[in-house]
């Protein structure tokens, strides 16, 4: 079955990403430090002007509650690890529309994490309840 093979290949890709994730994260962190220093050196104006909602590389979490992802739209910095937790009695999955990542079935209180290293817009859904759709933007 093509689709299954494709998703198995994808899983392999995801695993490869995972191994280099820590390295990438360090790179992102040091890049941020350099940016901050440059901003300070130039009076800090441009850095301070950034809105509070500016993406940071700190870990992020998404709750699944009442058949909804909360928040439904999330902006994170590249290198951020996002963790989903299912609070519903009904199981849910995290399945990106383009197959970039896919969890197994999450029962109540189960979690799933994925590290977003590549900038882009990721749409995902619950494959059990595909009307549950949400987006993560990685900058």
């Amino acid at each position, binding site marked *: 079955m093509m689709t299954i093979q494709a998703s198995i290949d994808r899983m392999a890709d995801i695993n490869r990403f995972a191994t280099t994730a820590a390295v990438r994260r360090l790179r992102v962190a040091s890049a941020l430090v350099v940016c901050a220093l440059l901003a300070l050196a130039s009076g800090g104006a441009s850095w301070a002007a950034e809105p509070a909602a500016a993406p940071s590389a700190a870990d992020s979490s998404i709750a699944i509650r009442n058949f909804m992802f909360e928040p439904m739209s999330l902006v994170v910095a590249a290198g951020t690890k996002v963790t989903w937790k299912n609070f519903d009695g009904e199981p849910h999955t995290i399945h990106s529309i383009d197959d970039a990542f896919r969890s197994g079935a999450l029962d109540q209180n189960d979690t799933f994490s994925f590290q977003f290293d590549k900038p882009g817009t990721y749409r995902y*859904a619950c494959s059990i309840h595909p*009307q549950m759709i949400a987006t993560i933007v990685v900058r």
Partner: protein
Amino acid sequence: MSDQDPIVPSRRRALRCLAFGGAGTLFTLAGGVLTPVELALAVTDRTAAAAAGVPLFVQISDTHIGFNKEANPDVAGTLRQTIELVNAMPASPALVLHTGDITHLSRPEEFDTAAQLLSQLRVTELHTTPGEHDVADASVTEYFNRYGQASDRRGYYSFDHQGVHFIGLINVLNFKANGLGALGPTQLQWLEADLKGRSASTPIVVFAHMPLWTIYEPWGWGTADADQAMGYLRRFGSVTVLNGHIHQIVQKVEGHITFHTARSSAYPQPTAGDGPGPGPLKVAADQLPKMLGVSSVTVQRHPKTLLLTDTTLA
């Protein structure tokens, strides 16, 4: 239980008490039309059952092995009761169709328990199609490792039994981002070829997990490209489309096509739009057996008709 079982005596009452609540639907074929028959009725009234025709198959659905929340902490027990109900039928149907959500979380141990329970069915063939709960493992392999042989791991296949053409379809794999299930172009192409050249008088039974017509779009109770499939089926004189997924009976007739969704053997779900989503519905313990069940179909020879029956565990 149905409205069809009015008067009658203590034996049926006793069986009704024994029966758990949702059981199934029995299908009979009469005059090329499938008709549902109350399964408990078929069990209790041997004469009526014999007159109704040849038992063709029983549909079991949404067994959700692995579910353990308050809506039903013992789904294995209610499946066991459902199987006893089917085995107690006076003339055993040759086939059982399981229309998906065999397991709750696609875990290997859930599939093993389900297989062990389903092996107690006194029938010669068990045919399955997966629900979204059966393909929820990250690698999507557990279902196909066990039930993939009939379809060469594609999920869709057809076979003939007693002059009836059966078609199993899969609509839980390539879901559309609009929230509905989908068959996909490859499967639709196969379906068109499978039906080509068949006589319009061949009774057709189509089974898939998610409803093949839109019952309630906000909850994904439908299949985005089902209309195309119905286009290929419309010329046939008797088409019965059987689904599960919504854990309650909803029926519709459109031309020669009869649509029917089965009860679950595990737990009921709310009616469309009632509450935040289609999750397990907690009901009073004495109500649960009346909301679980099976569907069965029998064939009537002259004229050739399919008769469909829904039966609850109580």
